[in-house]
């Protein structure tokens, strides 16, 4: 989706003024071009410089849309108007032409990009064209636009800057685009400040300008698939890297790697579990031994549900699940987690003879049983055991002590952070460095799958 649905719904009304504001580089032009493409009945009025820039840099703007881009002081034909009468003559030629199109029913929205550059040009014209100075007077132009909206035409104004002013007070709708740069990664957002008469379902969206197009990134809530389908296997072969089945488009694990997933505590459980279960499912379907000491948000019931969701019933012979709780099922190994040495013994026993095993360690579960020092010792032991067997160790969990997180960050070969940003799950790799990605969880294919969208 290019722009939030609330904004689209708002523009279905008649005679509204929408202000799109933001600091330089926040994507106002791309956002408003995307709006023009989506609306199909919007005209885009801009300066010659911006029009050339669009021609050069936005190849996705198709020929049909290009016909609706007009240069403010360009030479365009127009004819007398019945609907707008003499009011038509209070505007520059480009708008007169567009108002003819409004009258014909071809256009109902005028986009002005950007407010400052248009006003700047008007000031020049006001001096140059003395006999038409009324047309180019910025204050009059502003008032005439207000009248135009009273007459049922929608006006969208792109404005540099985020301060409150006459425009933001008068506009029926205001959206603010913003970006921040964190550790070299760009995070973009759209805030819906007001949209009169529209229920705002969400006031903040994550936003991306990938490939020069506006993408509003939507959070999908988990839906149980109506028809379960087999999780697709990715072959694990020596010399080809180890697929995570989640982040393969941006990074690959190598045999012997320790992976640290640093999940922020408010990332939804479904996202957390799908990330680890996808790798686990693939190991099991490759007939490789896998052991899981599940993180805190995966109790035995949840784990069994995941087995059902990923259709892993036939692969259970290769799976060992370590819990401390009392469980009836045999396949859940009960371990006394209070005893670190015993835990090590169980792990050694389970790993005996295993080649390329996967161990998923929910380190936050261990907090209830072991001291920080003991947890770190256990992690170190595990890492060595898994490395000896060329396997993969995934350390995951949400809440933990800073000291342990730093320890895991230090010893890991791959370090991925997954944060909750206004309800969205955003990931980025620290080791190796990656861009930030928005995560989406879909079950449309009959099994849970994480879809990544780059935020750029």
């Amino acid at each position, binding site marked *: 989706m290019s722009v939030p649905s609330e904004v689209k719904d708002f523009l279905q009304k008649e005679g509204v003024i929408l202000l799109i504001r933001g600091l330089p580089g926040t994507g106002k032009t791309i956002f408003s071009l995307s709006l023009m493409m989506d609306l199909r009945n919007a005209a885009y009025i801009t300066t010659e410089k911006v029009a050339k820039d669009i021609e050069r840099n936005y190849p996705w703007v198709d020929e049909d849309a290009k016909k609706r881009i007009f240069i403010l002081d360009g030479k365009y034909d127009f004819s007398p108007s019945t609907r707008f009468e003499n009011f038509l003559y209070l505007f520059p030629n480009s708008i007169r032409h567009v108002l003819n199109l409004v009258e014909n029913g071809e256009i109902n929205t005028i986009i002005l990009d950007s407010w400052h550059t248009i006003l700047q040009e008007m000031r020049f014209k006001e001096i140059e064209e003395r006999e038409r100075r009324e047309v180019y007077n910025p204050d009059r132009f502003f008032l005439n636009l207000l009248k135009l909206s009273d007459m049922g035409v929608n006006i969208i104004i792109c404005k540099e800057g985020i301060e409150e002013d006459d425009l933001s007070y008068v506009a029926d709708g205001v959206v603010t685009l913003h970006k921040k740069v964190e550790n070299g990664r760009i995070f973009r957002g759209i805030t819906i400040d007001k949209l009169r008469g529209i229920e705002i379902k969400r006031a903040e969206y994550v936003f991306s300008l990938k490939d020069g197009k506006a993408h509003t990134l939507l959070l999908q809530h988990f839906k*149980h698939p109506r028809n379960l389908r087999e999780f697709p296997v990715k072959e694990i072969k020596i010399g080809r890297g180890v697929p995570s089945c989640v982040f393969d488009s941006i990074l690959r694990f190598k045999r012997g790697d320790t992976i640290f997933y640093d999940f922020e505590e408010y990332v939804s459980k479904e996202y957390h579990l799908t990330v680890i279960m996808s790798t686990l499912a693939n190991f099991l379907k490759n007939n490789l031994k896998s052991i899981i000491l599940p993180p805190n948000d995966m109790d035995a019931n949840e784990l*069994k549900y995941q087995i059902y969701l990923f259709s892993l*019933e036939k692969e259970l012979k290769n799976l060992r699940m370590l819990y401390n709780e009392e469980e009836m099922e045999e396949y859940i190994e009960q371990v006394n987690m209070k005893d670190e040495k015993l835990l090590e013994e169980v792990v050694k026993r389970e790993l005996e003879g295993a080649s390329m095993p996967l161990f998923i360690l929910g380190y936050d579960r261990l907090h209830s049983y072991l001291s920080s020092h003991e947890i770190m010792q256990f992690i170190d032991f595990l890492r060595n055991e898994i490395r000896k067997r060329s396997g993969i160790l995934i350390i995951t969990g949400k809440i933990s002590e800073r000291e342990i997180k730093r320890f895991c960050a230090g010893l890991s070969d791959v370090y991925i952070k997954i944060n909750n940003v206004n309800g969205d799950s955003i990931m980025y790799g620290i080791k190796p460095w990656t861009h930030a990605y928005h995560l989406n969880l879909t079950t449309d294919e009959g099994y849970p799958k994480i879809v990544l969208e780059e935020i750029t």
Partner: protein
Amino acid sequence: MKRILLVDDSPLFYNFVRNVLKKENIEIEWAKNGREALRKIKEKKPELILVDIILSDMNGVELIRKIRRDWEKAKIIVITGVDKDYVAEDAFEAGALDYLVKNLPLGEFKKKILKYLEN
């Protein structure tokens, strides 16, 4: 003597069911997986089938669908450790009469089984 079939790979749970129902004059057959269950249903024609959701060769919902295809009137209830509405919905859709979670109090568990055997 009434006959029930328990489909579950856990011998612990099989022993549990046997103990709960030992005074009730009920024969309990046990199948460790889906394939064994289908064979035993054909041979023993049980009055009631108890199915776990996680089996070693297929999931319980798949098994219920297979049983329903050949024995339309079979009485099937799910007894499982997976306490999820989503899975219960799948099971009901496949044709289960009830969905019981394994940590149900003993007395209640017994009452439910007897009720389904009588009706």
